[in-house]
Structure formats: C-alpha cells, structure tokens
C-alpha cells in the first residue's frame, strides 16, 4: 500500500483534485444564478436564523466555485482542500441533523431545496444516507489532498522536496 501510494501519488492527487473540484464546481455552478433558491434551501435546514441562513445561501455557491477552480487548476491545493473538506463535514453534520430532527427536505446540494411531501418519507431517508456517504467520501478526498497536495497537471509545484 505504501509502495502503491509512493508510486501513484501524483496521479491519485490529480484524481482527488478533479473529483472534489468537479463536484464543487457543478454544485456551485448550478446554484450561482439562483441565489434565492439557494438562500431558501439553507433556511429549510432550520439550523441558522433566517437572515443568517440567507447570507450563507448567497455565499455558498460562490465559495464552492472558487474552491473548485483552485483545486482543478492546482493553486493553493492544501488550503483549498482544507476548506473543501470542512464544508463537506458541515454538510454531513447538517444533513444528519435534519434527519435526526425528522425534517423532510431536499438538501439543495445541486440546486433546488426546500420541504418535501411527507408521503415520500422513506425515499427521503434513503437519500439522506446516500448524501452523507457521498459527502464523507469527498471529505476523504480532501484529506488526501491535504496530505499530498502536489500532483500531476498542477499549476503549483512542491517548493522543496518533501
């Protein structure tokens, strides 16, 4: 395993960057031109007070796109991965909290959002599980990038041999 990582680390780093960056780019890009939906989606989690939730909803798509571009181009990969991983953990906690409180909402991860008809409860619970697994997976990719930020096709190179 150690050998494998030593051999393929630059490629794995590239893959992780494209994976995390790609998901963030799509997620942010789909929400950019619908700030109102994004603000409503964050408010539907009922974690933050309404006006704060709206601010987060407005900021999130731009933050996601900015982090995505840094990861994909390969600039400041370590701090970008740190923030990317942190927001994935926040998303995971938010969805878990919604699930635990029995709220039925669309996560609004890729646009949309808001409350869902109670008749779809079983389906929504399965979706929560998948979303949590997905976000944890992306958090792992972020962790890898934090540990090994320098890889193939990167704008930024390791300054010193590590």
């Amino acid at each position, binding site marked *: 395993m150690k050998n494998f990582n030593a051999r393929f680390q630059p490629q794995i780093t590239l893959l992780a960057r494209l994976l995390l960056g790609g998901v963030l780019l799509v997620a942010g890009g789909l929400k950019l031109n619908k700030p109102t939906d994004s603000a409503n989606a964050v408010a539907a989690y009922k974690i933050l007070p309404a006006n704060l939730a709206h601010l987060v909803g407005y900021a999130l798509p731009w933050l996601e796109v900015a982090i995505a571009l840094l990861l994909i181009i390969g600039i*400041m990969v370590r701090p970008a991965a740190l923030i990317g991983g942190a927001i994935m953990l926040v998303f995971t906690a938010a969805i878990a909290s919604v699930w635990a409180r029995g709220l039925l909402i669309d996560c609004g991860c890729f646009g949309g959002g808001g409350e869902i008809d109670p008749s779809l409860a079983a389906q929504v619970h399965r979706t929560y599980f998948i979303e949590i697994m997905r976000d944890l997976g992306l958090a792992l990719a972020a962790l890898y990038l934090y540990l090994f930020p320098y890889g193939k096709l990167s704008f930024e190179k390791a300054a010193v041999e590590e």
Partner: protein
Amino acid sequence: MAKQQAKAQDNTTRWIVIAMVLLVVVTGVVFSLMSQNNKENASLAALDGTKLKPAVTATIDPANGSAIVLNPGQAKVIDVWEDPQCPVCKNFEDANGDYIESLVRDNKATVRFHVLSFLGDESVRAANASFCAADEGQYLDFHHALYAVQSPLENSGFWSNEKLVAIGSKIGITSTKFADCVNKGSKIDLVKANYDSMEKYGVKGTPTVFINGKLWERKSPDFNLAEFKAAVEAA
C-alpha cells in the same frame, strides 16, 4: 537567502489568492442581496392603480378553526388553507383566485379561508394583517395583494409590519384602525387558533382545499382553472 525570498513570495501569492476568493464570495453575496431587495421593492409597483373592491363582510368561525368566513349560508362550502408565504399557494391563487372571489361575490358558495403561519415570522405578521383586513371587509383585496407581491425568498425581512401597512394603503385600506391592528399584532390569537386547528382537520401542507368537506386532490401537474372549476361545480 534565495530560499527565504521564495518563501516570502509564496506567502504573498497565498494572500493574493485568499483575497481573491474572499472578493468573489463577498461580491456574490452583496450582488444577491441587492438584487433580492430590488425585486421585492419593485414588486410593490405591481399594486399601483389597484382599486379597492366593494367590502365583503367577514366573520370568524370559532367552530371551524377560527377561519375567515365569507358569504355564509350557501349550500356549497369551500375551505382554503394557505400560508401567505407559501409559493405553491401563490400558484393556486394565480390560477383560481379570481374564480374563488367570483364564487363569493356572486353568492355561489361560502368560502372559509384558514390563514396559516407555519413558514416563519413573516407568515405570522402577514396572517395577522390578513385578519385585520378581514375586519375592514377587505380580506379578498388584501389576500390578492399579498400574493401579488410575495417574495420568492421566505422570511427575507420584506413583510415587516410597516410594509404590510404600506401594502394595505397602496390598495386603498387606509384606516388607522387597520394600521394599528397590523402594528400591534391584535389578531395574534386568531393566527394561533388557525395554526392550531391544522391537526384536527388533518392539514399537513398548503395549499389544502376542501370542497363540501371533502379533500380536493388535483390531478394535473399544475393548478388549472378548468380542473378546479369542474370540481367545484360537480360538488
């Protein structure tokens, strides 16, 4: 020495990148906030030139969840459960609002409006103001105006008491009694009574409509007048 310089340069790059990311995010937020506020204030202009229609006496029916009752005593009874902030209620109003108003004005049906408020503070304020307008006999006018200016962003701060009074006066409800009632939250007990009656009637979301006590279920993907009209006429 060279290494130190490289390190210093590296730090500068870092700060430039961080500053750029922050700039992008802040610009996005400010832009979104401004466009939201502009849209909300512009929507008020839609009410310009609205003429107040003849008053319709409204009563409160404590036996039926403290709903607003218009045109009592008709054979046909329609119960409409709405939250002023609910976007789907706006769709329902856009499609069927005028028809429901005609049922009241032409004495074709009794209509009971259950004004709900589960979408937050602005729903509570708007519901309170709705009961105030009902006192003036202008519930239908106010109801129509609220949906005409409904913000796509819930609890955005748009429906302050001040704005609700302004919406009223724009459509011709200018009495100080109305303004007082809105500002003091005089009808908060009725707002609460309507909300509390949801469970008793098995109302889980909005809009919910009962025609002669029977739950109306729409078949088409969107609200359309023909479908609703047929259901009311068949009852």
